[in-house]
Every structure is written in C-alpha cells, then in structure tokens.
C-alpha cells in the first residue's frame, strides 16, 4: 500500500482548528493510498466554500470551480478524460443548496464520479447562515428567530434521485470514513458520501459530542445495502439514532459505458483525425 503522505500537498489547510474537514481530508488521502492510486491519476473538483478548498491541500490534479458547480465541471472532466479518478468535493450549501439541481441530475447520469459532501449544516465561509441541512428552528445569523424551513435529507434525496451508491460517514470516525471512500471510489457509477463534518465556529448545535451520542453503524445492524426499501427506511432516522455507513449500492451501467463516442478510450487522448468527407453527402 502506498503512503497517504504522497497525497499531502505542501499547503497547510487554513480551516479552523478542530474543523471536521481535517478528518475528511486525512481519510481521503488514506483511501487513495490504500487503493494504490497515484497522485497524477486523480482529479479533485470542488465548488466554493470552506470545504471546497480541499483540492489545494491534496496532492493530485485539482479544480476549484464555482459555487454549486463542482458536479457539472467534474462531469465534464470525466467526459473529457475517463481514465482519471474523479472526485467532487464541497459542502452542504454548495451541493444541496445552490448546486441541488446538478446533484439530482448527476445521480441520474451515473458517471463514475465520487461525490463527497462535507456536511456541517451551516454556511461557514460566509460566517454562519442557515444551510439546506440546518435543522428547523435553529438560530443562525440569517435566521435569528429560528430556521423556518425543514431540513433537507440528502440520503433520502440521493436514494430517490437514483444514486447508485449512497453512504454517510462522520469525520470523527476516520477509519470507517476511509473505508467508505474506498468503497465509493471503487464503485462504478455515481457515489455519494455525505459526511458529518462539524463546524466548530458557527454550528454550536451539531457538534462532535452531539454526533457521538447519536450515530451507529449500519453494518453493525446487518443492514443490507442491496435493499432499497430498507435503505429508504434507514434514511429517515434522525434524532436519537443516526445511521452512518453504506445505505445503498446498486451497480448499473455507467454513462461512459453507454456512450458510443467513449468506446475508443479517453476523449482527451484520441489522436487527431481529419473529418471523413462522407459527412458532406447529406448536404449534396
């Protein structure tokens, strides 16, 4: 197995001390090393937000894009060079708020992409406004009277949206999290890993302690990830018992497997070929 250190860049993360994203980063570096990937084979595509700074701290190819647009950019990367291991990363605001439309369609599309959402249930980089996964009636800077909107359930949304791999991890459980990443990256198709990644600065509600008191592992309860109904039922659990682990996995044909243009290899590597003049026959 390769050393996780090869995936460390020489840039020190600028996250707040104790941020959940450190655990996400370390586990991802370990997972890539365990999978014997090499840095040049990986492309990490992020959106905008605290967590979206991750590519800068990871030694691989990286793209830091626009708020909410990591998935369509990552999809373009995969269409352009399917030989790359493509990992999209971002936060809950990025993926489930401004980028929610792309999230839904990326699941349908089923390109072989791993999507890691560092879910801290708050907007951090903009200093603490409500996010789509902020719980109801929680007070934030933008909801001083309490958040009136109900909390989005990313796991249920992913199941309904047709994701072929749906998992949840916790950055306080780094070994477990690294295993989830490995399964997600190995999975052929779109894989969501929603990660509880506590924000020490702006979310005083969903803390490490809060999660530690509530989470349990699906594999300990003999959950069958092939069972869609069971996965949907587990996705509804919140409050005193919150599951982490693989909710659902169902390998089906990926987009790139079905795309005839990609049958001859990665698009960016195809040699130049002059256009066959027979294409003009339809205009004569």
């Amino acid at each position, binding site marked *: 197995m390769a050393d996780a250190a090869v995936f460390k860049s020489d*840039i020190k993360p*600028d996250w707040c001390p104790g941020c959940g994203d450190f655990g996400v980063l370390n586990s991802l570096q370990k997972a890539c090393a365990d999978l014997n990937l*090499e*840095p*040049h*084979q990986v*492309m990490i*595509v992020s959106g*905008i937000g605290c967590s979206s*700074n991750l*590519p*800068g701290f990871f*030694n*691989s*190819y*990286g*793209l*830091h*894009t*626009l708020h909410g*647009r990591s998935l*369509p*950019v*990552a*999809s*373009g*990367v*995969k*269409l*352009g*060079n399917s*030989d*790359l291991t493509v990992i999209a990363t971002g936060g809950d605001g990025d993926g489930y708020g401004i980028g929610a*439309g*792309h999230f*839904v*369609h990326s699941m349908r599309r089923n390109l072989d992409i791993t999507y890691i959402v560092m879910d801290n249930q708050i907007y951090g980089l903009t200093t603490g406004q409500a996010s789509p996964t902020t719980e109801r009636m929680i007070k934030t800077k933008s909801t001083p009277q309490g958040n009136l909107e109900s909390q989005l359930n990313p796991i249920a949304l992913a199941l309904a949206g047709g994701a072929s791999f749906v998992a949840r991890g916790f950055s306080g459980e780094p070994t477990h999290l690294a295993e989830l990443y490995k399964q997600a990256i190995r999975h052929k198709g779109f894989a969501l890993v929603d990660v509880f990644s506590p924000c020490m600065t702006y979310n005083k509600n969903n803390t490490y302690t809060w999660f530690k008191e509530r989470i349990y592992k699906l594999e300990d309860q003999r959950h069958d990830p092939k069972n869609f109904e069971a996965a949907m039922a587990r996705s509804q659990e919140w409050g005193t018992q919150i599951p982490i682990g693989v909710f659902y996995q169902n390998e089906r044909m990926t987009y790139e497997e079905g*795309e*005839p*243009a*990609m049958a*001859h290899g*990665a*698009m*960016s590597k*195809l040699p*130049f*070929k*002059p*256009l*066959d*003049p027979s*294409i*003009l026959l339809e*205009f*004569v």
Partner: protein
Amino acid sequence: MKRKTVSVWVGGAAGDGIASVGESLAKIFARNGLHVYAYNSYQSVIRGGHVWWQMRAGSEKVYTQPETAHILIALNQDAIDQHALGVETGGAILFNSDRMQVRPEHLAHGAQSCGLPISKLAKLPIMQNTVATGAFMYLAELPLGSLEKALEERFGKKKPEVVQPNIDAARAGYEFAKQNWKQFGLGLGLSKTQRLVMIGNQAFGLGALAANCRVYTAYPMTPASSILHFLASNGPKNGCVVKQCEDEIASMAMAVGAGQTGARAMTGTSGGGFALMTEAVGLAGMLETPVVIVNVQRGGPSTGLPTKTEQGDLFQVLGASQGEYPRIILAPQTIEDVFYTTAEAFNLADRYQCPVLILSDLLLSEHTETVDPLDLNVKVDRGEIVSEWTSSEPYKRYLNTPSGVSPRVFPGTRNAQHVSASDEHDERGIVISDVFTDPPTRKMMMEKRMRKIDGARKELAKTYAPKLEGSPDAEVTLVGWGSTANLLRAMMRRLEEEGVRANIFLIKVIAPFLGDDVTAALSTCKRLVMIESNFTSQMARLLRMETGIHIKDRILKYDGEPFVPSEVYKEIKKILARAPAREAVAPR
C-alpha cells in the same frame, strides 16, 4: 423577372410539411447548379400558426430571401390570403383546389390562379405537397427527375411503399401544369456545378467536428438546438461526445471541465441560455481553459421572440461574467464563414487558453444557403503544451511568461499535479485569496492573463484583417456585422447598379476590438451608415467607444424579421439625400 432567378414561397401551418417541401426544392436547385438562399419565418408552435418559407435561386449568387414570389405554393387557405398579393404579375399561385380557393381579390396584382384538383391527381390528400411541387417543376423549367430522386431519398428508407405513389403524384402535378399553364421562361441556366446546401447551424457542427471537438454540451434552446441535433447524430461516430445537460449552467461548466482535460470542448445556446452560462464563462477566463461558446441570438429581452432574429446580445457577450479576463468574440457572416470560423475558434482557444465566443443569430444559423464545397482539412494548433514534466521543480500551470500564455499540461500527466483555481492564485495555482491577499501577486497574475489579449489582437488583425469591400472611393460605406453581411453585399451591388458608388465594412472581430485597424480602414470613408438588427445600434456604440468614430446614420430593425432589401435601399437613399451628419467620421 429581369434577373435569372426564381423566387418561390411556400406557405401554410406548422405541421403542413413546409420545411420538407422547401428543403427538397433547395436541394433540387443546388443539384442543378443554382445558388439558393432561403429563410423560413415560423412561430413558437408545433401545430398551426403560419409558416412561410421564402426562397430565391439563381445562376449567380443570391444574397437574400425574395420580397416577391414568382410562385406561391399554398398549403392552406391562410397562405393564399396572406401572400397572394406578393406574387408577381404573371406569377402563379399553386394550391389544392379541392380545399382552397383563389378569389379575384387575390389576383389584383396580376398573379394567375393555378388550382390543382388533388383528389384527381393523387391517391391521398396528404400528397398535395408532392403534386404542387411537381407542378412547380414544370413552371420553373426544372427537370422532373430531380424531384423523383428527392422523393426516393426522402421516403426510400423509412416508407418505401409510398415512394411510387409520390412519384406518380409528382408526375401528375407536372403533367397537369404542362396541359394547363405556360412555363415562365426564366432561363435559369442550369449546370452540373456541385454545391452543398445547408443551414448555418449545420456548419457550426461541421466546423466543430473538423476541428476534432471532443465534447459538445447543450441545453435545448431555439435557435441553437439544431447544432445539438446535428452533432447528436454525427458526433459519436466522429469522436465527439454530445451531452444534453440539465441547464445551461451545467452545459457551460461541463464544457469547462472537458476543456480542462485537454479535450476540445464547445457549448451552444441562445441569449437566455447564455445569460445562465456567464459565471462559468468567467471561470474559463480565470482557469485559462480553452472552450468555444456559440450564442445564436434571437429577439429579446427575456424569452422575447423565440423564433425570430435579432442582434441584441452584443453587449451581453462583451460584458459576460464579473471582472476582467481575456475573451475572444467573433461574428461570422455567412455559412462558409461559420464553418471556418468555428474550426479556427478552437485553435484560438487553445493558443490563448481562454473562452472564444461566436455570435450568430437566428437568420445566420437557420437560413438555408448553397455553399461551395468545404475544405474539411482545417488547420489544427493546440497551442503550447507540456507533454511531460521531469523537473524536480514543481510545474507552474500559470507561469508568468512574456506572452502571458503559460504552457499547459493535460491532467493525468505524471509529476505535474496542480490545482486550477477560480480564486485568484499564484503561478502554481495556489490560491492567494483566503489566508492573506497578496497584492503584488494579484497584479502580476492579472497582467499575465490580460497580456494574452495583445497576442490575440495581433494575430486576429492578420487573420481577419478589417478591410473595406468594394470601391475604395465610394460615396457611402455600409457598416454591419454577422448575418447582415449578405444583405450589405446585395445592397452594395444594387447601389452600384443605380450609379451610387458604395462599399461595405463588416466587423468580424468584436473582442479584442481591432480599434487601430478599424479606424485606419474607415478613415477614408465619406459617409458611414450602420445597419444592424437591434434597437440601440450596439455595434455603432461599441465602435464609438473603441475608436471615437460616431456613426449617426443608422438603419435598425428589431421586429424579429430579417431586413427587407427594398426597404433598406430606400432608407439608404433617404440618408444620402440628407446633408451628412456632423462628425459622421471622427478625426483620428
């Protein structure tokens, strides 16, 4: 009927098969060595409404749709009611006399009523279009065999059983016309010269494929969708992934992602979709990702006129996305030009590592025209590429070079890992925005990027050197851009025929604006008239901003339909009769 041309209108409702009659006729003309120009006026409905195909063909180049018709093929009563008076004296109205009628008032301008008893000439009423086309072939002195071949091609594969009945119907129409009416004696001068017949959007697709575009992304939007359709059927077998996306934000973002890998990428849309794309156009500017974007303009603002033409997006494209970044904007003028410009756009994108925007409009993209055979062996230049990195020093994706262009590696190259960041970054791509902002680095990187414009400007001034077309000592210079090129050329010829020395000036390179070259070209002009399809004369305003040249005489159209040549002609004459507006040409 003084010129050797034939003008035909086909009118009816959406769903009547107008486009297939029009397209068949266009091919028949082209196969007989004629030049064709056709414009189809339609609405945003699938069934019903009024569709009006206006086509002119001739042995010499034809530049615009006809204003009057020799022959109107009416597929419903509405077409007769609306267009009968536009048929020239001695011209013919071909119609199904079982279902429609031509009344005396329809013939007030001297057209002849040519009713076709379809029930007697064809097995099924649905064949009225074929019968009428057969009759047209006789009146316009075209060989019936060309129509028979077109029918075989149209139905042979899908419905072979209807080929013969249609050929019979065409012959019946031809014979009926022969027995009842006189030929027009147009003397079209048919030949065996091979010409292609296509619409502008097909040329966009062909240009992209010739340049080895590997990924095309789009969300359906009129009038850009036919690029998507052409590429969807021709892309995969020519090494191009064609991806319909959930919206234009995704189309643009996906094209950027693909472009980042080294695959040539393009996206296409109309103004509304482009509005959604703009943030990611700036992303391509910041990441220095080569990508080609086509905006086929239609009438705005907002959803505006979905099926009508306008040149109203010039400023939108010029100002797309926040901040400043190098962009190249080109406005091709004809269908051939669309093909070659699109292919070259990929080279420019690769050389300057920036978004290249191509502005078209509904008229250019959807009108049908004959083009000379296209040279598919286009030049391909991928710009500065580093294929391997063996140095122990880290690879600098955004190396500060004299040209501003930093040689790029394609992701997947060993040992050259780096991040391309949307936030301001240093030469290695490391963001400088979060922990500390670094003014000197920001300044250096901004200047590095913007310096690319100087190289692009120099190159574009050679490739697409702005120059006057026509007499150097003209009394009037008609200025325009994009789809109006054809109209301007027609106007120049007409003015010259009437003894008015005229020339034209077309602005193809919109950004970086070739200010010095444009000023030099226009400095000798006596009188400038801007002709464009928008309300505020955006090109005249841009020209004034970039050069100080203030064109006060403007002919503008924003009703959605293409310019009508005779109306433009009258306007030009009116302008010439006036004293020149002061400052018509500003001093240099």
